[in-house]
């Protein structure tokens, strides 16, 4: 009887011990994956975002040197690689080569929703929730996160890649100026038309396309036959140097896919000097 009792006690202890061991093993595995992912993300951020200006300026210099290449310079760089057991797709982009939604909202608040619907090719559900607190009114930034513009939850459920693609053309950060070396012809024409008129836009576009003369901003503006007020408005709209960059990372692990977005160089939002970060 005692022997049987001891056997039962041993069996119960073994099963309890097994459960704990299994839990420990699962937690250790999760901790290992978390550490690997964290290490990978920090490495990616340091390698890509921290050196974004250098990468994009190098591509711009190539165009200045090589006569066979023409403007605009690349404004987006895509990377895809494996690190450890994770698969990473990254998009590094110049925020000054995208439409700034806060600027668009400021200039045309009534048409904003319709404009946005078209700009996103209707791929992403739009839910506008501007921040109307006094603090944001002071900074003229009613939109500071994609959650205020799009239905993030619904988008990620339906089509997660749409979010990355749509936001490769739009931004909420930066000072609102467009980099004249990196925006495409259509964007240059539209923005210049809004700032000056169609004539000013055509002249600016022609100047950039002219391969006989080196296109330099803002010096090249002086060569154009434009009124002083038009030149001033164009200087306020465009810039030759970018200061704000974004890095979008899609990290696929064994069990789930995570998305990360970092914005570097946005003075208004990152008081600590570190990149603004969104993780989900």
């Amino acid at each position, binding site marked *: 009887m*005692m022997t049987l009792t001891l056997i039962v006690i041993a069996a119960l202890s073994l099963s309890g011990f097994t459960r*704990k061991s299994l839990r420990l093993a699962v937690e250790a595995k999760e901790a290992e994956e978390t550490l690997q992912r964290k290490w990978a993300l920090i490495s990616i951020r340091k390698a890509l975002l921290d050196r974004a200006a250098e990468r994009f300026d190098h591509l711009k210099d190539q165009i200045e040197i090589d006569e066979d290449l023409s403007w605009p310079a690349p404004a987006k760089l895509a990377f895809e690689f494996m690190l450890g057991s994770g698969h990473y797709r990254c998009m590094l982009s110049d925020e000054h080569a995208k439409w700034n939604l806060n600027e668009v909202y400021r200039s045309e608040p009534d048409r904003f929703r319709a404009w946005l619907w078209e700009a996103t090719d209707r791929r992403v559900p739009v839910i506008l929730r501007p921040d109307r607190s006094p603090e944001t009114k002071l900074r003229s930034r009613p939109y500071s996160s994609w959650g205020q513009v799009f239905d993030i939850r619904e988008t990620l459920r339906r089509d997660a890649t749409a979010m990355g693609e749509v936001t490769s053309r739009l931004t909420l950060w930066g000072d609102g100026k467009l980099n004249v070396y990196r925006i495409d012809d259509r964007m240059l024409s539209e923005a210049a038309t809004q700032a000056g008129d169609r004539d000013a836009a055509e002249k600016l576009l022609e100047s950039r396309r002219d391969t006989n003369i080196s296109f330099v901003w803002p010096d090249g503006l002086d060569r154009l036959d434009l009124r002083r007020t038009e030149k001033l408005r164009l200087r306020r709209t465009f810039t030759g140097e970018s200061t704000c960059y974004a890095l979008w990372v899609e990290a696929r692990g064994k069990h789930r896919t995570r998305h990360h977005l970092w914005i570097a160089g946005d003075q208004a939002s990152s008081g600590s000097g570190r990149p603004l970060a969104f993780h989900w």
Partner: protein
Amino acid sequence: MMSDQNSIRGMTAVEVLAATVLAALLMTALIGVLRGLKAQQAAVDARMPTASWELALDRTLKRDLENTIAYEGTESVLKLHGYGDVVEGERTWLPATVLYEVRKGKGSSWLVRRVAQRGSPDERSGAAELVLAEVRRITFGLPVEGEARTAAEKNAVTSKTPLPARFSVHFWGEDVSQPLYTFTHHAL
């Protein structure tokens, strides 16, 4: 008569002795196994100091601090300003302030978590969620080792301060020598 006698056969002394020795050997082996199990259990417990409530709170704070841009607070409330709003377990990336508050009741105190959406016309203050019992105060700031901890930690930050790359939070109970819970955040 002869068959009745044969069916009621008893055990001999040798058989009883053999059975006793076998039982003793089996019990000795089982006791040895149980002792070994106990030792291994103690080793596993030593490697698993975190209770399930601590793991859950780790995950919540990690998620909150990942999307925090600035913080402020006192000994009874910590405010994390950023985009930490979560609805049905999914992040919304809406501007929100996550508040960790110490609320005192009749003879007890609780740490409570609440999310307040920022700036929308129908500004919502989310339902309060009980986090940890017997919390009397909160301290936060950069992690500091040793005796200088209590003195160096900032107990009152009254204006929004950008969140540093390393940031720690301590929840204290009655015992002032050791916090009930500590979490250190490392930004990605």
